[in-house]
């Protein structure tokens, strides 16, 4: 297996080769580490990886190989190297959330999402860089230095899952896990030219995801293709008793959506055979005039403002034309409260963060700074030296909006407006719209250090944050390039209707073909 060949393989292809005995998990892991060295994933270049252990990964691959033997049931991710955002608890490798306050911390338990990846045959090869505690949109807020965009090293990869998006874009792993609170999978996916999925709130267990804002946090998937992202989400989705907000809604085979039509019965033996990789999914026919017949796509005017970059608008219009050419109807819609989403989010998320991050106090985890002046002084010294500027800013902002005298004006008001934003989505989907299409971000990747004003940075999330507030699923797929930098198109569907979201994404990806990366 040459490195060049490896970077061209998707997760689905790797898994089917491994299951067929044509490739070994060890070869895949070695090729992944070789690619990481070649592209410069370390701190002196792209700074994508925070923690990895090649020797341990190769040993783990050998153990998987031994367990597999010649079994065809190796799992739908048999032998697939996967990178994990550093705020998802893993065994063996540290979990630091890219923060000094958790430097060196190794979790004694593992996130359910990672356990499920391993159960499906995946191999965890690294923990990826991110904005500290997932607070940021550029991966510049990491205590361990910024990650660089593989498409242009002068630019950011987006954030906060910038390391995971860059790992996939650079061909180091075909699949990675990230997390979202306001767009932290979709925005870096758009900036790096890969596919990024945020599932419905409750679709994927949050057990083992270090909490930032618990009512918004979700683990998401990044892949180079829609099919790999679907495969990744299938692997980790589903009820988990360890997360009280986890849903018991059945998980469809998202890959079947490429074939059109309704989702197959999740309880049938045939579906189960596909789920575990025993039966392959038939190849989807090329897109034609009936691929999306009957599908209504909403185009919300609030996400196409006059100020939108004309080149990004043109690429969105091209995508909408492709959707029409496959039989979809595009309908102008309105999500009138969406312009309020940034103020709402930057009240609610910091409020929840100020509570969740109270646990990092110098007693239970990592860093401890004791100036010898009592308990309160130890807390303050530890937290001040352990947290970076953006985390400090958000903890203070959250404490302020929750404090006496300001709670009603800020927190309670923001909760009420969040309900109105959610109502907007419900109203659109109950009016016959099946999916909403928007740009993922208002700009392409910007240069490292270009944005210093905190609120200007927050505006990067302007098109993504509403899906988190409403809890609906959303994904970003590549739809073209502007000045050589990738642009993402966003598809949003109703709660737990990831199936339709993937159906539209598969069709658009096929219709755009190479244009998605030109």
């Amino acid at each position, binding site marked *: 297996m040459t490195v060049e060949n490896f970077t061209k393989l998707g997760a689905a292809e790797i898994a089917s080769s491994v299951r067929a005995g044509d490739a070994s998990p060890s070869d895949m892991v070695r090729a992944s580490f070789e690619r990481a060295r070649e592209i410069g994933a370390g701190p002196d270049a792209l700074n994508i990886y925070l923690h990895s252990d090649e020797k341990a990964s190769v040993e783990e691959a050998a153990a998987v190989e031994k367990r597999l033997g010649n079994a065809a049931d190796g799992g739908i991710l048999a032998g697939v190297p996967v990178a994990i955002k550093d705020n998802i608890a893993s065994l063996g490798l540290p979990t630091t959330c890219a923060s000094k306050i958790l430097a060196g911390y190794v979790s004694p338990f593992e996130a359910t999402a990672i356990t499920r990846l391993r159960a499906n045959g995946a191999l965890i090869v690294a923990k990826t860089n991110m904005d500290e505690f997932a607070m940021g949109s550029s991966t510049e807020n990491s205590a361990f230095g910024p990650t660089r965009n593989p498409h242009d090293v002068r630019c950011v990869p987006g954030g906060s899952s910038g390391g995971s998006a860059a790992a996939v874009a650079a061909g180091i792993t075909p699949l990675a896990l990230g997390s979202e609170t306001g767009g932290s999978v979709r925005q870096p996916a758009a900036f790096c030219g890969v596919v990024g999925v945020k599932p419905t709130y409750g679709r994927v267990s949050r057990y083992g995801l270090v909490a930032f804002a618990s009512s918004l946090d979700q683990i998401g998937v990044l892949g180079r293709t829609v099919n790999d992202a679907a495969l990744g989400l299938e692997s980790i989705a589903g009820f988990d008793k360890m997360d009280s907000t986890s849903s018991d809604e059945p998980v469809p085979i998202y890959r079947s959506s490429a074939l059109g039509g309704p989702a197959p019965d999740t309880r049938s033996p045939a579906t189960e055979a596909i789920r575990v990789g025993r039966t392959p999914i038939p190849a989807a026919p090329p897109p034609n005039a009936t691929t999306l017949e009957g599908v209504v796509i909403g185009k919300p005017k609030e996400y196409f403002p006059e100020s939108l970059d004309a080149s990004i608008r043109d690429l969105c219009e091209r995508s909408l034309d492709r959707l029409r050419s496959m039989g979809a109807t595009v309908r102008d819609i309105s999500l009138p409260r969406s312009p309020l989403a940034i103020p709402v989010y930057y009240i609610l998320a910091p409020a929840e963060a100020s509570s969740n991050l109270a646990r990092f106090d110098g007693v239970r985890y990592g860093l401890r700074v004791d100036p010898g002046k009592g308990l309160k002084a130890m807390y303050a010294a530890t937290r001040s030296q352990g947290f970076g500027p953006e985390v400090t800013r958000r903890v203070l902002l959250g404490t*302020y909006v929750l404090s006496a005298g300001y709670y009603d004006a800020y927190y309670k008001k923001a909760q009420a407006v969040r309900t109105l934003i959610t109502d907007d989505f419900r109203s659109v989907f109950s009016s016959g719209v099946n999916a909403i299409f928007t740009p993922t971000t208002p700009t392409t990747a910007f240069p490292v250090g270009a944005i210093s004003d905190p609120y200007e940075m927050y505006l990067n999330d302007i098109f993504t944050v509403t899906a988190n507030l409403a809890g609906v699923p959303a994904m970003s797929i590549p739809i073209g390039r502007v000045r050589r930098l990738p642009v993402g198109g966003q598809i949003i569907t109703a709660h737990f209707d990831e199936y339709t979201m993937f159906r539209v994404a598969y069709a658009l990806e096929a219709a755009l073909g190479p244009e998605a990366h030109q």
Partner: protein
Amino acid sequence: MAVTREDVLHIADLARLGVDGPRADELTKELSAILAHMEVLSQVDTSAVSGSTGVGVEGTPLRPDVGVPPLLESALESFAPAMRDGFFIVPRLATHEDSAESGA
């Protein structure tokens, strides 16, 4: 609603964050600027919205409030620095010699 320097020092104390003089001045400006963008919410009519703190998603029903033990890779003793009677022993604060004498 502009944030004052006193506000910043007060919330920093509540949040157990040490903020020194120059940083307090910077944070006063930053938080005031951010909160100025939030004022738009005061103009939104929310009188018809019932109090809700949930995320409004169907499919997450209430369940019995039963504790589930964490799925640890190995026993607590194997990763805690020290334990006694089922409790973790944390490093003593530099100023807590008196607690040691009282047996706390």
